[in-house]
């Protein structure tokens, strides 16, 4: 008798059928006690807040499944029609964290260890989960106690963080819509939102990223350092935007930039 991992697509919010969690749960068997209770990772693909990129979805889930995590890919609200998108993606990501923790037994997950990884605009969303999880409105909306959506740690892959840095105004134009007020912009610039409550982070970026400037990662790390938040960071010397796992499967190969995928596993296992 074979034991297979199960894949299940789960709608998260009754009024938003497009927001789904795809769960990859390793099969259990008495000879594989490790799989009874794994650590979890929530995957937030990139796509400029216009969509969720496949290159940062399933391949990432497979990588972490193989590394011993149960993996959950979130398709979050994207492509606003001119109205502000924010905070819908943060609500969606919080709902995903809540679902994983609520169903920890069924998903064979330890609710104390739920990490989040985001790529590009998904990296902005992950950095928002890390810095802005403490939100009364979201708690009321989802019927959730404070802290329940806080990730154990976040992995930020070539993330957008700051509105102050030129280098991805398209993402921010989508999430804020017609709202051009400075306080709205600052509120979603996550390097300004780091506090002592911020979750630890593993950050990586390529120096020559032509889509999202490496400075997004550098200013976020500086804020973490100033607040004493634990982090690890790697800036690889060469590579364009969107290299994901930087391997054959995703069709990318730039110097050293596949190390992150193994280093972040070591980092997560050290918690």
């Amino acid at each position, binding site marked *: 008798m074979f034991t297979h991992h199960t894949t299940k697509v789960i709608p998260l919010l009754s009024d938003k059928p497009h927001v789904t969690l795809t769960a990859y749960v390793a099969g259990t068997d008495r000879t594989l006690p490790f799989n009874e209770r794994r650590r979890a990772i929530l995957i937030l693909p990139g796509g400029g807040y216009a969509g969720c990129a496949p290159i940062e979805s399933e391949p990432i889930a497979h990588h972490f499944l193989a590394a011993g995590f149960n993996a959950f890919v979130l398709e979050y609200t994207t492509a606003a029609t001119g109205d502000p998108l924010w905070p819908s993606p943060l609500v969606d990501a919080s709902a995903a964290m809540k679902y994983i923790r609520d169903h920890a037994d069924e998903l064979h997950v330890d609710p104390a260890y739920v990490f989040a990884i985001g790529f590009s605009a998904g990296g902005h969303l992950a950095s928002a989960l890390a810095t802005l999880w403490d939100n009364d409105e979201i708690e009321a909306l989802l019927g959730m106690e404070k802290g329940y959506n806080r990730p154990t740690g976040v992995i930020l892959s070539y993330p957008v963080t700051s509105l102050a840095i030129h280098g991805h105004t398209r993402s921010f134009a989508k999430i804020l819509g017609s709202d051009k007020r400075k306080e709205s912009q600052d509120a979603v610039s996550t390097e300004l939102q780091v506090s002592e409550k911020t979750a630890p982070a*593993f950050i990586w970026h390529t*120096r020559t990223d032509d889509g999202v*400037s*490496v*400075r997004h990662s*550098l*200013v976020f*790390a*500086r804020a973490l*350092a*100033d607040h004493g938040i*634990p*982090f*690890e*960071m*790697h*800036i*690889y*010397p*060469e590579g364009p935007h969107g290299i994901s796992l930087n391997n054959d499967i995703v069709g990318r190969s730039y*110097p*050293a930039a596949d*190390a992150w995928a193994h*280093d972040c596993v*070591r*980092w997560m296992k*050290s918690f």
Partner: protein
Amino acid sequence: MITDTKSFQIPLLADRPLAYLIAYVAGKSAEMPHNEKRKAMLIIPGGAYWMQSDAEADPVAHTFLAAGYNTFILRYSVGRGVDSRWPWPLVEASAAVKYIRDHADELCIDPDYVFVSGFSAGGHLAAALGTLWDNDEIEQMLGMEKGYNRPTGTILSYPVISGLTYAHRGSINNILRADRDDEEARRSVSLELHVTEKTAPAFLWATRTDEAVPVQNTLLYAKALADAGVPFEMHIYPRGPHALSIGKAYVGCPYPEVAAWTADAIRWMESIRPNATKNPV
């Protein structure tokens, strides 16, 4: 006939006897043509510009010697009663780079490939070579053409960079002495303020939990490099105290992930090309 590595001590400046090089030059053999002309690495140990570490000298030299470089440890003028005021350390480091290039044939190195690796305060000095190499007084003093002391690349390990908010006060005080509280003097040695497009490419690393030199030093230099478009690679490891050297257990490092930096630096150096001329535009 057995060909061995040669090691010897080289004085650098007639009137400054504490400044010298320890050179390790791999033995030549018909079996190993690589050794006819290796790339060079100048190593600057740390010690807050007050003393000099041993763990950041030989272990580093051996690591990069084994990786195919000829290595040169800079011993420089620091300590009680010694005049270590800026810019003397930069003069001595420049004299070291000049010596290596002047004697390229004898040292079996390619003068287009002289990397400088510095640790802690030695990292400040290496980064100073990377940013402040263009100095008319030093060129005149050493009788050297412009650019001759510019490193091909710098490798900065948990470097002291800044004399401002995140300064390692001891290091900065030891090079500024009476001027230690002068704002302009501190800015003059705050290397994050001096990065330009002519700054040498850099490989830099530190630990987040460095209790001596705040990790912001490394982040500030990287941000300046990013702003100026200078090639760099950077690794911040999540745990570990100051002064981990090559990151191996025998130099006292208990965190195995740190040791990855030396292989990464070797791979990085392979990708770095020198400027077309010895006088970079």
